[in-house]
């Protein structure tokens, strides 16, 4: 029988497949860290190794899905680029020559360097973080140290969005607000590639498709979301503001404006002083109590804060002193009804046909007014009036980097908000909703700490050195009006630089302008590569020495990172961080939270694996250093460490305000409080038991009109989200901007320098307007006829993934994408190499022709190119020889204008204007090598990195029967 069955098996083999194999011995929830989406994940472990990472179905952000990056976490953990030991530089910066040291020595060194700075001149410490999901801690630490020189990376990322939103609505795009996915009928997205809030957007777009809602994507490039949009508008970069204001023009003309909404929730009726040359021209007319005035039909004036007062939209008011004032709405209508904003007038500039603009305005109006929706949910407004339903106009907008990264980004984003407000869609059903902890008051607080009066040896700052200036008094400048911060944020260079200007730090420190610093302390910020404009120069500045003293111009650099990025070799002291699977962490309401429109939420990370090398979570290290330095917030009155348990101890026990700490869930001794409550020693256990997140569901009656919803406002106070249960009035007209403008016009005691007067007077317009981006305006547009952009691909997040063995197979190098018709006219074949030049530099790159891109635009994937020697990749890897950065073409400074070089940035916020880049294409000569140029010299790397395997055979656990080896 045995023989026969063998024969049978030979001719008819069958396989018994184990259909119920053991998957894992243990499942741990935590939060992903591949991008700023912060999806909830479940990490399955088998025999101590990661078997599988999947999305957590119960998590409010991603509801069980995960993206390519999250699903590749295994390879992020397995990367041989991981740093393994603290390092002390022994060779020249960039040589990679380090001495491996113990943590004791590393911490002692850091303290040895930082202590004297604190004791003599705290601002000589510049502390800037790239991976800024610990801003609440790092900003607090900087304030305790007493240095004004702190920011995260928002200044070169998204501050235009944040600031425009906060001053207008007390909320913003990005991940602080989202369309009402369940109810919206018409969504228009601007400048969105794969980006923050990525998985929720994907889930939502699928839902829109199911419901038959229309999705229009305004983006120069047609990939990703734009590929599946119902309509793709291939706009010319930097002109979105003009397009949007043209839509506003059409809506005003057709009277498709929600007058009711404007009256109840905005400052549309507030009177604006019209008295040219007066020091309060353009400010609101206010009564003695300081309340803004409105014009009643009778012609008399009344307080604009009183409920029920009928006010005029248009009309001349006579102020008590006889001067004239007009309602905000009149200024809005006058400006945007101007024929200069008509579709015909803007079509050529935007690259969108006038008929299309007109049609989109019509569709938008139709969806908003004819498609008005009503939810049968009674609610009470700020004045105590009960409404039986929640009425909404189901048109929503979403916008990202494509709007922000321009020198006109702030005003463009303001234009978007204006459009939303005129349609009555802010926090209305079907419109755009605040995500918790927003809305905050508009204009927002606090003001930035770190003014000269507040900085002194050994003294902590009274608050975080970032904030929202409301007038020149709030600027962080010295007695002569010169910048006081090393990045010149909150100076006349960039008055509302709410997120700081990290991209200016190295250049200013090198120049010693406004002053030299002693130590540059950075966390996860690849300033020596893709996070810098003008990369080669930035690298030079890091290694430049003072010819007299022989010291580096930036004397000391302390850097923390998980992987061997291009920046590591330039640090003098390297503090290696853990991976996201090896640490405690919190995604806090005080920081960049994961809150939803339906209620606040926050989450944690818990260690899933123990590190297999001598690394420590950066936050633990920072707290330890803080304690050793004796920073008040980090030591008890007796001088003992306040958080001896490190970051998890801080997370649970730190109170930023009484009862308000990093995590809002399960506060109070028994874990019975939400938002505000005493520290709960078991708080983290609750989180872990709940899948590492906390979510509070607001009652139905509090879900919309939060800015004017009495019950919500009271809840928000109880939970510590806002301080007072006052209505937040949406600011069509942003008065703080006018205060700065008045200074630009010569009014007041704090005036900008002559070189800045006209600029301040021009751009600090309290109503949005469009202007040509600066670089475009200053270069010869004939010589540099094309726009150049980058986009983030869906499977890589900035420079965080080339060390990932799976993801780099998908995208190991990038190409410059060129419109096919444009390419043909230049004589390009499908994959030729070209020289790409800007006013600042030139690079040699491979191209690819494509159809779906604006005909005046070239683009590439963001941050794929790497520098030879970094990331523990073999020399000869495609990232080094075929991958390239556009950064080499971008300068921090604009071409000089009247002798002064202004920053290549938004004049209001200082946001780095990456996407203003203008270029030309020239074909390479016959026979030129097909390697990218410039090719920076190989950067050194620490000796102790892991060996790169030639074959990766990842398999979790060893219970698999080896197949006939």
């Amino acid at each position, binding site marked *: 029988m045995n023989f026969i069955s063998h024969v049978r098996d*030979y*001719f008819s083999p069958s396989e018994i497949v184990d259909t119920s194999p053991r998957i894992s011995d243990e499942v741990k929830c935590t939060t992903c860290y591949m991008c700023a989406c912060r999806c909830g994940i479940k990490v399955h472990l088998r025999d101590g190794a990661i078997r599988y990472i999947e999305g957590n179905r119960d998590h409010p952000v991603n509801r069980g899905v995960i993206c390519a990056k999250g699903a590749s976490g295994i390879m992020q953990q397995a990367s041989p680029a991981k740093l393994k030991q603290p390092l002390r530089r022994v060779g020249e910066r960039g040589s990679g020559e380090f001495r491996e040291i113990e943590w004791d020595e590393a911490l002692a060194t850091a303290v040895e360097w930082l202590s004297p700075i604190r004791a003599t001149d705290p601002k000589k410490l510049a502390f800037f973080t790239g991976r800024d999901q610990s801003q609440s801690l790092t900003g607090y630490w900087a304030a305790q140290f007493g240095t004004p020189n702190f920011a995260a990376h928002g200044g070169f990322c998204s501050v235009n969005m944040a600031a425009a939103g906060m001053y207008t609505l007390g909320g913003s795009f990005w991940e602080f607000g989202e369309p009402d996915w369940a109810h919206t009928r018409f969504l228009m997205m601007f400048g969105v590639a794969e980006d923050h809030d990525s998985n929720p957007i994907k889930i939502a777009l699928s839902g829109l498709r199911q419901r038959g809602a229309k999705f229009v994507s305004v983006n120069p490039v047609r990939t990703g979301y734009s590929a599946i949009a119902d309509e793709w508008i291939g706009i010319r970069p930097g002109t979105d503001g003009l397009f949007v204001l043209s839509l506003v023009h059409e809506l005003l003309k057709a009277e498709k404006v929600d007058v009711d909404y404007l009256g109840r929730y905005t400052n549309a009726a507030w009177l604006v002083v019209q008295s040219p040359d007066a020091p309060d021209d353009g400010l609101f007319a206010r009564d003695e109590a300081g309340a803004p005035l409105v014009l009643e039909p009778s012609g008399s004036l009344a307080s604009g804060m009183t409920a029920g007062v009928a006010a005029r939209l248009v009309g001349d008011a006579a102020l008590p002193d006889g001067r004239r004032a007009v309602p905000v709405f009149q200024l809005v209508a006058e400006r945007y009804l101007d024929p200069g904003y008509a579709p015909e007038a803007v079509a050529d500039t935007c690259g969108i046909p006038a008929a299309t603009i007109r049609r989109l305005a019509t569709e938008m109006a139709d969806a908003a007014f004819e498609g008005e929706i009503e939810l049968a949910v009674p609610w009470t407004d700020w004045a105590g009036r009960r409404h039986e339903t929640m009425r909404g106009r189901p048109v929503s907008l979403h916008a990202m980097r494509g709007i922000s990264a321009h020198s006109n980004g702030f005003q463009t984003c303001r234009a978007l908000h204006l459009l939303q407000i005129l349609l009555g869609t802010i926090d209305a059903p079907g419109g755009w909703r605040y995500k918790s902890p927003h809305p905050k008051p508009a204009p927002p607080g606090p003001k930035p700490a770190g003014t000269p009066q507040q900085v002194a040896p050994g003294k902590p700052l009274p608050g975080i050195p970032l904030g929202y200036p409301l007038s020149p008094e709030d600027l962080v400048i010295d007695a002569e009006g010169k910048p006081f911060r090393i990045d010149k944020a909150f100076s006349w260079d960039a008055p509302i630089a709410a997120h700081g200007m990290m991209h200016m730090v190295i250049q200013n420190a090198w120049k010693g302008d406004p002053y030299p610093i002693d130590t540059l302390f950075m966390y996860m910020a690849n300033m020596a590569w893709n996070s810098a404009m003008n990369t080669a120069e930035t690298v030079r500045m890091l290694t430049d020495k003072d010819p007299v003293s022989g010291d580096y111009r930036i004397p000391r650099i302390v850097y923390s990172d998980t992987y061997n990025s291009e920046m590591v070799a330039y640090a003098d002291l390297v503090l290696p961080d853990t991976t996201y699977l090896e640490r405690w962490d919190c995604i806090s309401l005080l920081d960049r939270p994961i809150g939803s429109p339906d209620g606040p939420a926050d989450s944690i990370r818990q260690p899933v694996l123990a590190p297999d090398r001598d690394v420590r979570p950066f936050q633990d290290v920072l707290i330890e250093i803080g304690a050793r330095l004796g920073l008040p917030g980090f030591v008890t009155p007796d001088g003992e460490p306040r958080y001896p348990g490190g970051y998890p101890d801080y997370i649970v026990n730190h109170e930023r305000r009484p009862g308000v700490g990093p995590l809002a869930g399960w506060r109070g001794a028994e874990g019975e409080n939400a938002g505000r409550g005493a520290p709960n020693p078991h708080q983290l256990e609750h989180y872990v038991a709940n899948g590492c997140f906390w979510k509070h569901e607001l009652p139905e009656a509090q879900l919309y009109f939060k800015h004017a919803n009495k019950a919500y406002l009271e809840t928000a106070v109880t939970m510590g989200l806002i301080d007072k249960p006052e209505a937040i009035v949406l600011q069509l007209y942003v008065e703080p901007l006018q205060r700065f403008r008045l200074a630009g016009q010569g009014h007041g005691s704090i005036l900008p320098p002559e070189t800045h007067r006209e600029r301040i007077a021009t751009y600090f317009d309290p109503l949005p307007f469009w202007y040509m981006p600066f670089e475009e305006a200053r270069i010869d547009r004939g010589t540099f006829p094309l726009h150049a952009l980058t986009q983030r691909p869906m499977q890589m997040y900035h420079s965080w993934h080339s060390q990932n063995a799976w993801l780099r*197979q*998908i995208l*190991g190098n990038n190409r410059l994408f060129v419109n096919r018709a444009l390419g043909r006219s230049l004589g390009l074949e499908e994959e030729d190499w070209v020289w790409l030049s800007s006013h600042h530099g030139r690079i040699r790159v491979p191209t690819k022709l494509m159809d779906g891109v604006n005909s005046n635009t070239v683009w590439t994937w963001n941050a794929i190119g790497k520098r030879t020697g970094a990331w523990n990749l073999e020399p000869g890897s*495609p990232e080094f020889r075929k991958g390239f950065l556009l950064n080499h073409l971008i300068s921090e400074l604009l071409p000089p204008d009247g002798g002064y070089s202004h920053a290549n940035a938004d004049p209001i916020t200082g946001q780095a204007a990456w996407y203003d880049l203008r270029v030309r294409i020239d074909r390479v000569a016959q026979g030129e090598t097909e390697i990218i140029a410039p090719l920076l010299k190989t950067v050194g790397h620490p000796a102790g990195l892991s060996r790169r395997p030639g074959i990766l055979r990842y398999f979790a656990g060893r219970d698999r029967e080896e197949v*006939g080896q």
Partner: protein
Amino acid sequence: MHPAFSIIFFTTASGAGFALLALLGLGAPLALLPASSSFGFTALAVAIVLAAGGLASSAFHLGRPERAWRAFSQWRSSWLSREGVLSVLTFLPTAAFGVGWVLFGTTGGLVGLCGIFAAGLATATIYCTGMIYASLKPIHQWHNSWVVPNYFALGLMSGFLVLDFLVRLWAPHPIGVPLLTFLVVLAAWWSKERYWRFIDTTSARSTAESATLLGTRGKVRLFESPHTEENYLLKEMGFRVARQHRLRLRRIARLAAFVLPALLTFLGLLFGGGFGGITAGLAVVSAALGLVIERWLFFAEAKHTVTLYYGAEAV
């Protein structure tokens, strides 16, 4: 398709070997060949070495050559399995035939019958080899009615050329063999030219449009490959050879596999003797070179439908 030398050697060598075997198995019983057992031994040895050597070479192409014995089991559905089974079966009557001829000095009767069986099985083996390729629908340059006849023609041609050379070592002035050889070379040449014309002028029905269900809005073009580097599919099935290069190789193959052997065979037919032996020998060498190039091209010029997903507009 990626031209693997182990496979190229396999098909050319075993094509020649099995064809030669068939010729011996038919020719000897019909008394068309030298009857001596030394001839029988030598010729059969050459045939078996070529056939078996080719087969062994093909095993090197395998990921798990130690399991090659399993390849005989699925003859019900697989041409590769059939080829394996038949090739092994061929050796059985061949062995009997060889024993009979070499040890007993006879090629008639039962021994002859074994020879004819061997010839039949050898022919069937070549057929199976051709069908391995011809049965593959995704490769238009293989899935057509020229491929199997070409395998036969080229196999037969190489068999005849070897036979012609070997025969001359025993019979210095042959007529029939070289004449047939000459005709077969011409026939094979014609067959190959028609094949090349066929693949130059036709494409598969499959297009990038049918591969993707797209195309209502216009031509389908690859925008981004799934990987920026290569992958197994491209390495194995994405091989491309530039037009100039392939035309040049065809010219060399034409010359080496057909023109020179035809000429040399004809000269051998005319003059015979030692000179004929040399020309026949040179013809074999030239044909071997030419056939390796021809077979290399057979792979290199073959396009697989998977390339439609990687930017090919047609296959």
